[in-house]
């Protein structure tokens, strides 16, 4: 492998990687046409700009089509068990805080069997980057409904239609107080790549809900949002400090009516009347996340929330440093002798 044509990044002084460096030698085994390919490509393309060394990257996953992700990354990788990616990643990050730890998980892996680890990792604010491949279906097990499948959706396990109200993953993340919450999609490569970078840059728990097409078991679930003709009128891209404008001719916007969002036409309102996104407001993040489920509203995409709060592995380290500062580095002989001791002399 030649490294000559590699440029140096400012941050680490290491030779900057290329997307190719991040591809492992394993054949990628997703179904042809699966949205997962695009996500893999965006991750491989966007990570190099962040200046990590290959050996300092670790990808952890659970079980599912999406969870095969680590095998395709030429980094350290851990294909865990179903639902436990975040628990494994939390331990890895706690024990080895210098790594950049990424979690690739599915809507089932993350929100069904793994839901508890998800909300706990979010509240504890480990510095993990979580990409949830949200195809609203169980891919690997061949097409049962998932916690994000729609009410009424017919799947292998709901031949008469699902009667479960689906999770809104962003609401779950916000309810668990994740410090970075975003949504993107497989078919908007630029947006996806930039969202991945934003997640990486966030110090703390980052969650990206990635709408992903499973062309075998739930084909077209997101075409309304991803396809050229329908996308402009059915999506709104939110950006910090910017008003919420959308529509084919940028002719629509979102306004706040008290604390409820409202779709307005820019013929009736000026841009200045529109809601301006604020990534630092939990309340606004909730309002916008909730908008997803409001019929007649565009699907919001982008970074909903990006706030700072103490990161668990940092605090862990601090407590250790403080303990050492206070009592000195632990010494076995004194440990053994803690509390009452007594001597028995030869007798």
């Amino acid at each position: 492998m030649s490294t000559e044509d590699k440029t140096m990044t400012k941050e680490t002084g290491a030779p900057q990687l290329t997307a190719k460096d991040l591809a492992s030698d394993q054949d990628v085994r997703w179904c042809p046409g699966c949205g997962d390919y695009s996500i893999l490509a965006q991750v491989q393309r966007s990570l190099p700009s962040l200046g990590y060394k290959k050996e300092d990257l670790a990808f952890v996953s659970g079980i599912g089509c999406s969870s095969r992700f680590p095998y395709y990354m030429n980094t350290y990788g851990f294909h865990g068990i179903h639902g436990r990616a975040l628990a494994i990643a939390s331990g890895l990050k706690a024990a080895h805080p210098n790594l950049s730890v990424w979690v690739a998980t599915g809507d089932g892996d993350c929100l069904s069997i793994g839901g508890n680890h998800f909300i706990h990792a979010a509240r504890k604010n480990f510095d993990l980057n979580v990409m949830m491949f949200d195809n609203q279906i169980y891919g690997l097990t061949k097409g049962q409904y998932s916690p994000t499948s729609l009410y009424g959706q017919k799947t292998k396990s709901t031949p008469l239609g699902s009667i479960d109200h689906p999770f809104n993953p962003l609401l779950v993340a916000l309810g668990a107080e994740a410090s970075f919450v975003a949504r993107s999609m497989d078919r908007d490569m630029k947006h996806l790549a930039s969202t991945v970078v934003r997640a990486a840059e966030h110090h703390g728990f980052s969650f990206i809900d990635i709408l992903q097409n499973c062309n075998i078991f739930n084909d077209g679930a997101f075409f309304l949002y991803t396809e050229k003709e329908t996308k402009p009128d059915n999506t709104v891209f939110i950006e910090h400090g910017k008003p919420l404008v959308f529509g084919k001719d940028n002719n629509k916007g979102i306004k706040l009516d008290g604390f409820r969002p409202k779709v307005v036409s820019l013929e009736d309102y000026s841009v200045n009347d529109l809601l301006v996104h604020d990534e630092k407001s939990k309340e606004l993040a909730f309002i916008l996340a909730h908008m997803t489920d409001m019929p007649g509203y565009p699907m919001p995409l982008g970074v909903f929330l990006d706030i700072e709060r103490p990161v668990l592995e940092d605090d862990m380290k601090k407590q250790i440093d403080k303990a050492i500062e206070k009592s000195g580095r632990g010494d076995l002989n004194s440990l053994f002798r803690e509390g009452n001791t007594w001597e028995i002399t030869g007798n």
Partner: protein
Amino acid sequence: MHTTIETADGKGKKLVDLIELDEVTVRFAGDSGDGMQLTGSQFTSTTALMGNDLSTLPDYPAEIRAPAGTLYGVSGFQLHFSNKDIHTPGDKPDMLVAMNPAALKVNIKDVREGGAIIVNTDAFDAKNLKLAKYAVSPLEDGSLRGYKLFEVPITKMVTTALEGIGLSMKEITRSKNFFALGLCYWMYNRPMEPTLAWIKEKFGKNPMIAEGNERALRAGYNYGDTTEIFTSRFEVKPAKLPAGTYRNVTGNEATAIGILAACELAKLPGFLGSYPITPASEILHELSSHKNFNFRTFQAEDEIAGICSAIGAAFGGSLAFTNTSGPGMALKQEAIGLAIMIELPLVIVNVQRGGPSTGLPTKPEQSDLFQAILGRNGESPLPVIAASSPANCFWMAIEAARIALKHMTPVVLLTDGYLGNGSEPWLLPKAENLPDISIPFATDPETYKPYSRNEHLARPWAVPGTPGLEHRIGGLEKKHIDGTVNYEPGNHQFMTDMRAAKVKKVQDSIPEQDIFGSEDAEFALVGWGGTYGAIRAATERLLAAGKKVAHVHIKYLNPFPKNLEQVLRRYKKLLIPENNLGQLAFLLRANYMIDSETLAKVQGLPFVPSEIEVAALKSLESM
């Protein structure tokens, strides 16, 4: 040996017998709020300082604080001390301190015939008698005739002694236990100084309480000295124990200390992924307070996250542990399977308790041997070892870590609530004499293969952050050497056989099975884990009675020691006391076609030596 000594009371002199005994068992019992655990542990510390060998057993109620006076709210602490090497908290108490009727009711059946009973007569009022379901006061109906009953108005005495120092009535009566302790110190001729020093330290910030407790303690001691009802004192001379420094340690403390030691000896940062559960939580507590060992504790959201975080930490290069008890162990099994597949070192400590299901959560049992060895999907072998006494937990924690590292495998360490909460003197090792259990990390990109193997059949440990060793692991079957995902029939057979062979290989790095007792015995008591003390004590008694018996205690349950079969075949008859329905016996038949008799006790209580002695005698007779 009897001596009559003079002892000073306020008024003058009193003559009492000083009777020398080889061993004594006392039990303190009262309401959960009566401080019996504290009384017991103070008596223990002092006794330890006097050089006796000893063994203790606390017995908590399932409730945190049951309403005062109820039968299910009784909390007990038993202590056995001796002038020789002993192994259990004692058969039947020689003395019972009962702070109320419920405590008497619950414990009286265990006291040996003719034993002493000290009761707080002030607590024997109508309400408490009713709560304890006594129709008539046992102090009056003659039912205690077979015992030496000492009726002491403890509450009143304490109230008098603490009068005027400014404590509330509630605070004053809380000192009752120190009065009882003082009285026992007098009876067993122990010094008050260690406890006085402890009171000073503990209640330093609250001098009034300190003063109250000190006065209560002295009042109790003086009561013994003064009143005429006590005519004998007892003396147990120091034991002939190996020279060295000792401390008293519970099994859970010893496990925690062993874990810290293992990390130091492995030269690795430590990690515990845990979820609280009785009776295993103290290991988490203890380790949480030793962060200066660069040890990370993580209280996870559940047992699954506990073990998975530990697996993540192991992947990250830490020496990782997870601890739990029965139900939590069941929850961890899927992840244990993962650890077996990815072949990373990990120690799983299961402090067993009464089952099935929630069972008897505060009571010990040995019924998780099956689930430890066989309780997972697939062919999923792993080493299982068990501690035999509280202090032994220290050594077995290190041993578990040593095997995990050397063979790159998860290892289960079984202890139980009896060992975990019980205590005994621990001859402190010198850190510098402990073995180096470290293993090298892989670092060479030229030679590294994720599933290559060394002579112990262990694969190399390549820690993230190491350049050039990037690799992927996971729960799918892996190709030999390569470590890539592989579904080929031949490879799966090979790897299944390999995982079995690898665990079998642990036989090469564990000691052979040892034997205690008579060289020419044809009868052996066989045991594992926490039954050690009771079996050993029973064996010693049988030997002392001239019986030809041996005791074979198995610390390595999977794989068994290489020579175990041969050892067991020496005997015509085996008797296996187990706190389950015969799980070891089952495994011995399955492994060696060696049959045995089982002495099963599944009562939430450990064996006492006499039970085993009786069963052994019966078994010997029928040979």
